[in-house]
C-alpha cells in the first residue's frame, strides 16, 4: 500500500513538473528514454557540444568493447533542460550518462541524485582535470561531476575593419579598448547600421569579468553559506564600466535582453558589427549568414584594467555525471572513462573547447580564435558553488535586472546594486 502511494505521489509530482514545462513553452519534455531496456546505455549530451564525428567513433569503440550494449545517444536542447532533467532523474529509468552545466551541478549534487564518483577519479585521468570545472563537480568533499569541457568568452573582432580604422595592435587595456571603439566609429560611423561593439544589456557573464577584474565577486562564501556582495565598491565599479562600454559602443542591442535574444552571432554575421563578446563557436554560427566572415575574424582576451593581465573570465562548461539510480552504473563509468582518454579529449579541443580531463590544449593553438580562449581560460573563474545557484539561472536572475535598471536609468547605481544584492541574498544567501 505504502509503495503504491509513493509511486502515485511521484507520478503526480512529475505531472506537475511536466505541466510546468509545457506552460513555459518547452513542451517537448516527455521522457523518451524512459523505456531503456537492458543492454543499452542512454547518454544525454547537450546540443552543439560534442561533434558528430567524435561521438560516432566513441560509441563505436564503446560498443565494440562492450558486446551486447548499445549506446542510445540523445541530444538535448538547453531550453527547459532543468525541468527535463528533474523529470528524467525522478523516473525509474533515468539516462545513464548526462552532461550537466557546471553551474547546475552543485544543485543536483546537493539533492543526492548523482552517483558518488570519488573512488573513480583516477580512472578518469583525475590528475589532469581542469581546475575551474573540478570545483563545480565537487560537493561536501566528494566528487559527483567529471569535467567535460569548458569555454569562455573573448572579444571577437573584424580584422579588416580594425585595419581600415588604423588600429594596429589589439587592445590590451580598457583604455585602449575604448580608444579602438572611438577610431572604429570615426571610420565607419557614417553608416547608421554600424555598431563598433555589439553589447546587449544583460550579458551578465561578461559583467562578472569586470567585477572580478576590480577585485570583487558576486558573493562571498563563508563555509557552506553565501553572502552576496553586489553592493561592494568593486562590483559597482565593474557595473560602471559595463555602462561606459555600452554608451561608448553605439550599440543598438536591447538593454533588456541577453546575447541570445536575438542571437548576437547572427547580427555579427550580417557584417555591420566590428566586435562582439562571445565564445569562438559563435563565429561558426555567424558563418552561416556569411561564410567569409570566418577568415575576417580575430580574437583578443577581454581587456583588463592593467596591460599585463587580461580580465578574469567566467568559465562556462559542462560536467559528465551519472545519476544515482542509473541501472547501468558500471557501463556508464566505462563510458565516462573512455571519454576522458586523451584521444577523445584532443578531439574536443579540435572542436574548439577547452577539454575537461586533459591538460593538452595544443589542438586549440591551431586556430587563433581558440588559442586566445585557451590562454584566457587559465584565468577562468566560476559562479558561487551554492546548491541554490540553479534558482538564479532558471528563475529571475537579479543580476540581469540590475544591469537593465542601471543601463536604462530606471535606477541609480546604488539603488540597482542594493536591490540586486538583496534579491540575490534571498535566493542563495544564508
Amino acid at each position, binding site marked *: 500500500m505504502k509503495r503504491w502511494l509513493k509511486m502515485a505521489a511521484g507520478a*503526480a509530482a512529475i505531472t*506537475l513538473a511536466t505541466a510546468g514545462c509545457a*506552460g*513555459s*513553452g518547452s513542451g517537448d519534455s516527455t521522457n523518451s528514454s524512459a523505456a531503456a531496456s537492458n543492454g543499452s546505455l542512454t547518454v544525454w549530451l547537450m546540443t552543439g557540444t560534442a561533434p558528430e564525428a567524435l561521438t560516432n567513433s566513441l560509441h563505436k569503440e564503446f560498443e565494440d568493447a562492450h558486446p551486447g550494449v548499445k549506446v542510445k545517444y540523445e541530444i538535448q536542447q538547453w531550453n527547459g533542460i532543468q525541468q527535463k532533467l528533474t523529470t528524467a532523474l525522478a523516473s525509474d529509468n533515468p539516462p545513464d550518462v548526462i552532461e550537466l552545466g557546471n553551474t547546475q551541478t552543485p544543485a*543536483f549534487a546537493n539533492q543526492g541524485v548523482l552517483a558518488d564518483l570519488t573512488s573513480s577519479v583516477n580512472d578518469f585521468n583525475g590528475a589532469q582535470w581542469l581546475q575551474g570545472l573540478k570545483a563545480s563537480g565537487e560537493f561536501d568533499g566528494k566528487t559527483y561531476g567529471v569535467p567535460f569541457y569548458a569555454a569562455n568568452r573573448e572579444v571577437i573582432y573584424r580584422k579588416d575593419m580594425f585595419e581600415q580604422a588604423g588600429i594596429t595592435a589589439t587592445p590590451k587595456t580598457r583604455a585602449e579598448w575604448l580608444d579602438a571603439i572611438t577610431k572604429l566609429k570615426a571610420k565607419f560611423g557614417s553608416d547608421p547600421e554600424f555598431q563598433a561593439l555589439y553589447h546587449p544589456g544583460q550579458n551578465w557573464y561578461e559583467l562578472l569579468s569586470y567585477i572580478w577584474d576590480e577585485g570583487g565577486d558576486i558573493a562571498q562564501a563563508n563555509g557552506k553559506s553565501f553572502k552576496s556582495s553586489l553592493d561592494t565598491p568593486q562590483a559597482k565599479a565593474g557595473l560602471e564600466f559595463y555602462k561606459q562600454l555600452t554608451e561608448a559602443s553605439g550599440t543598438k542591442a536591447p538593454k533588456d535582453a541577453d546575447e541570445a535574444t536575438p542571437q548576437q552571432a547572427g547580427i555579427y554575421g550580417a557584417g555591420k558589427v566590428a566586435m562582439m563578446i562571445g565564445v569562438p563557436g559563435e563565429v561558426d554560427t555567424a558563418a552561416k549568414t556569411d561564410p567569409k566572415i570566418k577568415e575576417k575574424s580575430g580574437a583578443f582576451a577581454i581587456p583588463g584594467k592593467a596591460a599585463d593581465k587580461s580580465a578574469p573570465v567566467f568559465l562556462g562548461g559542462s560536467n559528465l555525471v551519472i545519476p544515482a539510480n542509473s541501472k547501468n552504473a558500471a557501463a556508464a563509468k566505462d563510458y565516462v572513462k573512455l571519454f576522458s582518454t586523451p584521444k577523445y579529449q584532443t578531439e574536443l579541443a579540435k572542436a574548439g573547447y577547452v577539454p575537461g580531463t586533459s591538460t593538452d590544449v595544443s589542438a586549440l593553438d591551431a586556430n587563433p580564435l581558440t588559442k586566445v580562449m585557451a590562454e584566457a581560460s587559465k584565468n577562468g573563474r566560476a559562479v558561487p558553488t551554492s546548491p541554490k545557484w*540553479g534558482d538564479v539561472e532558471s528563475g529571475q536572475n*537579479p543580476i540581469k535586472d540590475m544591469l537593465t535598471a542601471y543601463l536604462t536609468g530606471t535606477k541609480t547605481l546604488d539603488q540597482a546594486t542594493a536591490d540586486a544584492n538583496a534579491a540575490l541574498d534571498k535566493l542563495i544567501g544564508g
Partner: protein
Amino acid sequence: MTTTKDVTMPAGATPPASPRIKPPKSNRRLRLGERTAPYLLILPALVAILVLLGWPTLQLIGISLRKLDLRELVSGEMVWVGFENFSEILADSEFWEITVRTLVFTASVVLLTLLLALLMAVLMRHLNPVVRVIVQVALILAWATPVVATTTVFQWIFDQQYGILNKTLAKLGFESFIGHSWFSTGPSTLTVIGILVIWQAVPFVAFTLYAGLLGVPKEQYEAAGIDGANAWQAFWAVSWPAIRPILTMVTFLSVLWDFKLFAQVWAIRQGGPDGASTTLPVYMYLKGLAGNHFGLAATAALLMMLVLILLTARYVQLLVRTKEADLS
C-alpha cells in the same frame, strides 16, 4: 435560443419535483437491476470525475503537506512536514504583494474584456451584413492565432529598438518614445500583457454575447420604440435582461482564465523586471519548478485554488441553487 423564454418566465416557477421526493411505493419491489441501473449509468461519469479531478486534488493536498524536493522525488521518501509549507508561504511578504497584484490584474483585464466585448456585440448587431462578416472574420482570426505566436508578435510590436509602436509614435510627433522601454517597470509590463490578453479574450466573449443578443426578438425593440424608449433605454430594457445571465457566465469564466494565466506573463518578461510583473502562477512556477520545491509549489497551487473558490463562490452558489439556467 431559450434566453427569451427564461426572461419571460415568472421568476418563481418551480421545476417539476424530482422523483426522489415522493418515491413510488413499488420501489421496494423493483428488481435489483432496475434499482441500480441509474447508478450504473452515472458511474462512468463519476469515475471519470473522481480520477481526473478528485484524485489529483487529493494528491495536491498530500504534496502540500510534504517536503518534496528533487531528493525526495527521486528516492520516493515521504517527508511529512505538516503545515510548514503553508506557514513559509503565508509568512512571505512577497506572496501577499503578488496576490494583490494578481487580483488587481485579473479584475482590470476581466472588466476591460467584458466592456470591449459588449461593445463589439452591440456593434455587430447594428452593422450591415457585409461589414459584420468582415468584423467577425477578423475576430475569429484574432481568436484562432496560437498564444505563443501572438505573444511573439506583441513582443516585437513593443520592442524597444525595432518595435513598430515606438516608431509609429515617433512619426506621430511623440519623439520621446524613441527607444522607450515598455518593459522597464512592473505596471508598464503588466499593461502590455493585459492588452495582449484582452486582445485574445475579446472575440470569444463578444461572440457569446452576440449570440445572446440574437435571441431577442425584433418585436421587443419595436415595442420599446413605440413606448418612446431611446436607444439607451431600449438597451437597458430589452438587451440587458437577455444577456445578463450570459454575461454572468462569461465573467466567471474570464475570472478563472485570467487568474491562472501563465504562458503570456512568463513569455513576455519571466515576471520581471525585478519580479514586478510576477503573478501567482509565475510565483508558483518559480517556487516549485525552477527551484525544485514541489511541496511549496503544491501549497501555492492550493492557496491559488482557495482564492479562486472565494472569487467564484457566488457563481457556484447560483449554479447549485437554481435548477433553471437563470444566473442573473
